[in-house]
């Protein structure tokens, strides 16, 4: 059975802290791994990772993929209250299907 597991399930930090969110997967026909940020109802796209060891960065966010150990991490530095959201990890399979993890709920306190 294909599965994506995210940890921790939830996290509370203070503004300025650095957080690391984890995503491990066991999915057949792996094509890419994606990270989304979900506030309210609709997730917004953050990163797509296809190759191991290549870090992707966008401002205070960065992510890296390890295809040998089957995991990815999402780092957020200097967290802000606006970073509070659910962070979703998904693995795309060939055939354009996505398998989602349950998400990590991040709350940043001021």
């Amino acid at each position: 059975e294909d599965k994506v597991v995210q940890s921790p399930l939830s996290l509370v930090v203070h503004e300025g802290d650095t957080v690391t969110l984890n995503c491990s997967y066991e999915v057949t026909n792996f094509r890419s791994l994606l990270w989304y940020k979900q506030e309210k109802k609709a997730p917004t796209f953050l990163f797509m990772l296809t190759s191991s060891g290549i870090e992707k960065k966008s401002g205070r966010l960065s992510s890296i993929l390890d295809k040998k150990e089957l995991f990815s991490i999402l780092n957020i530095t200097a967290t802000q209250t606006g970073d509070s959201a659910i962070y979703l990890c998904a693995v795309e399979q060939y055939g354009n299907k996505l398998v989602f993890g349950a998400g990590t709920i991040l709350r940043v306190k001021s």
Partner: protein
Amino acid sequence: GAGVSQSPSNKVTEKGKDVELRCDPISGHTALYWYRQRLGQGLEFLIYFQGNSAPDKSGLPSDRFSAERTGESVSTLTIQRTQQEDSAVYLCASSLAPVNEQYFGPGTRLTVT
């Protein structure tokens, strides 16, 4: 430009009634996806349309669920004889296949009473 839109934003229906949910994808996006998110759970894939190919219906949970897409535009997800366990947010996404960066709509929150 315009993003993915969905309607209605909220729908309350009685158990046993049929409902139709609509999705307007981004113009030019050939791929369209429907997902379901139950409270506290991750996104669950329902169905995928790609151009004129036969849709991938492997995620539909029962034969009460069906979806159609008109060409490469509007899609409708229909749930017949709704049950309380159908209560969820139904999200639609579109993408320019084969690049699978999906853009999500705001979702429809369905409540079955």
